[in-house]
């Protein structure tokens, strides 16, 4: 989804997408070229992107890919949908925040939707804690503390959105 999201900015070559992916999301784990082209081929097959004609120099990396309306819709839906409220979702949320800033989408609204999803899960766990056994409470607390850590990150990120937007745009 990250590659499709990057493609939503402007038509791009595979190597450009890989470069930007590695810069923003790779964090020391660069995306293999093979995976980039396999993903682009799959996106083209599924009608989410269109491959342009091969440019001089040939080879798979000479094609410029353009996102389709179907692809744009998929990015839109993905950005707006909260991730299931499980602990350790930083990476996905992080990609969502950065991409939505790049695409000029309402990152703050997405964070609000995610905050609500987290709090809904926390309410369920709190109810389990109040009405279940001590062992249930122990398990619920484990989830609650992790969800709370995510929420702190969400709040901090929300407070930094203006600065993040400037950095991503530069």
């Amino acid at each position, binding site marked *: 989804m990250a590659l499709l999201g990057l493609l939503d900015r402007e038509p791009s070559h595979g190597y450009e997408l890989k470069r930007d992916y590695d810069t923003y999301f790779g964090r020391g784990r660069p995306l293999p070229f093979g995976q980039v082209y396999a993903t682009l081929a799959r996106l083209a097959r599924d009608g989410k992107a269109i491959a342009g004609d091969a440019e001089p120099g040939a080879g798979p990396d000479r094609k410029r890919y353009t996102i389709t309306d179907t692809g744009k819709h998929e990015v839109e839906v993905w950005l707006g949908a909260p991730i299931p409220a499980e602990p350790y979702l930083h990476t996905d949320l992080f990609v969502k925040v950065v991409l939505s800033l790049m695409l000029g989408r309402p990152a703050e609204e997405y964070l609000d939707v995610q905050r609500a999803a987290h709090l809904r899960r926390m*309410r369920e766990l709190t109810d389990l804690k109040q009405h279940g056994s001590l062992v249930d409470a122990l398990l619920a607390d484990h989830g*609650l503390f992790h969800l709370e850590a995510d929420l702190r990150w969400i709040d901090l990120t929300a407070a930094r959105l203006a600065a993040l937007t400037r950095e991503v745009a530069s």
Partner: protein
Amino acid sequence: MTRTNSYSGVQLGGVIIEARDLVLSFGETPALRSASLSVQRGEILAVMGPSGSGKSTLLHCLAGILVPDSGEVSFDGQRLDTMREEQRSRLRRDRFGFVFQFGQLVPELTAEENVALPLLLGGTRREEALRGARVWFERFELDGLERHRAGEMSGGQAQRVALARGLVAHPDVLFADEPTGSLDSLTGELVMGLMTSAARDEGATVVLVTHEPRVAAYADREVIVRDGKVSAAVGALS
């Protein structure tokens, strides 16, 4: 209109508090900038937001402690913002209960006198008021502390006494501003568990200001206050 909270199954009976376009500044500093909010009868609502966002100011306006510069606040169909201070004061005493973060107990009074205070101020005879207060000591696991003064109790005990005082006069609405803010996690959870179950038993509506997600998770839904405005609620109400 009656509706059911989709999560807790609590029956909610129409709007009890309505705030529209509240604006309030302290000198040059704006605290509320067109804040609007509806509270359903019987619900437990968490008002969240970062420090300085205006959430406590909003609570004070909803409770008739502060009057907004402009905008309307209604409680049970009565306008609080146009009411005389004397009437608001009576309303606060008779229909609202309060729990705050710090320093709430009168140090010269015993725990049971502190709990009985709203009843005494409402004109209940002393013996009857103390009898009404003592019921809460068993309910909140405070047996034996009736004659203790604030300085002779732990933070958690003092907060439970304050909570009992907030509920003793059977208020329609309990306003709680960071009620666990000065307590450790375990004690805070005990206080929250007691507060929410007692409020549900009493049929009281609760407006709970907190910046802690684990405290807000005891509520039926949450709203976020940001820069003096209430952001669209994305809560659990169907």
